[in-house]
């Protein structure tokens, strides 16, 4: 091997050893500027994650305030829980922006998930409460229609109302089924806390299934209401 070639090979070997030892192409410790860039990037990522969650929570807070059928206590409990998470995440973001090293930022950013579970628990649970309210409102509306259909039956002199009565009874049974199944859901959902996740995910899944069944039953009830109208013609 010629002398210049041997020299070049030696330089390459030394450079490779330096990269292996430091994890960078520099021969010394990582410059403070690069660390700052990584720190800032981690903080920005955490801020973005928090911002998305805060916006989603605020949107659901608006929906929660519009709840009409549930109790004031349920509505207040839901809006309070959502606001508590907004407040907590806002404070967490302030802490993260003040963190002085990457390890602390990463540890704090991890609590965005572990302490809140916004997407996998809070939002589905809030949505479930809102859906419960809609179903119970629809049930209430159909119940009032059922009362008016009963009046129509009572006033249908000279007509055979046997089928109308049977269909109306079936309609009322559907409504009772919805009320029985859906009424307990808001309280059950509001009781779910981030600390209980993922164990409490089962409750969420069951609530969703119940709400799906409730929707189907309400559709059946609406069909029966139309049938009773036809029965009385």
């Amino acid at each position, binding site marked *: 091997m010629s002398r210049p070639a041997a020299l070049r090979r030696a330089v390459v070997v030394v450079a490779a050893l330096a990269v292996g030892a430091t994890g960078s192409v520099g021969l010394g410790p990582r410059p403070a500027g690069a660390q700052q860039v990584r720190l800032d990037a981690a903080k920005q990522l955490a801020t973005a994650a928090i911002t998305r969650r805060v916006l989603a929570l605020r949107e659901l807070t*608006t929906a929660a305030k519009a709840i009409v059928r549930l109790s004031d206590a349920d509505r207040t409990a839901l809006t309070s829980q959502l606001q508590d998470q907004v407040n907590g995440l806002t404070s967490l973001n302030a802490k993260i922006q003040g963190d002085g090293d990457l390890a602390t930022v990463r540890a704090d950013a991890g609590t965005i998930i572990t302490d809140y*579970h916004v997407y996998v628990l809070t939002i589905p649970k809030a949505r479930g409460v809102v859906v419960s309210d*809609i179903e119970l409102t629809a049930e209430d509306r159909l119940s009032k229609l059922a009362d008016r259909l009963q009046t129509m039956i009572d006033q249908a002199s000279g007509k055979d109302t046997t089928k109308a009565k049977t269909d109306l009874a079936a309609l009322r049974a559907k409504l009772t089924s919805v009320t029985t199944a859906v009424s307990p859901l808001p309280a059950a959902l509001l009781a779910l806390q981030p600390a209980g996740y993922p164990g409490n995910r089962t409750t969420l899944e069951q609530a969703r299934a119940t709400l*799906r069944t409730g929707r189907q039953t309400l559709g059946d009830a609406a069909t029966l209401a139309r049938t009773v109208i036809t029965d009385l013609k």
Partner: protein
Amino acid sequence: MKKPALAFALALLVAAAGACSKSSDSGSNASATTPTSATASSPTSANAAGPVTDADVAQVDAMLHSLDTELSRLDSDMATGEGQVQ
């Protein structure tokens, strides 16, 4: 206002202006919820008393339609993970 707080407030404003319409990571994009009051208020076209008509039932159908939308959002919510935070 301190610098971190100002930066966070600005981030919220920017995100509110445009970020809701696009997916920035695998996290949920909670979509707008139809307020229950929007579906529960009584339209003036139907009678609150007297014989029940198809129009009365159609009002319930409208509520069920909004219910379908919310149930779809619930499905979407529950299918989504937390996404990346670090």
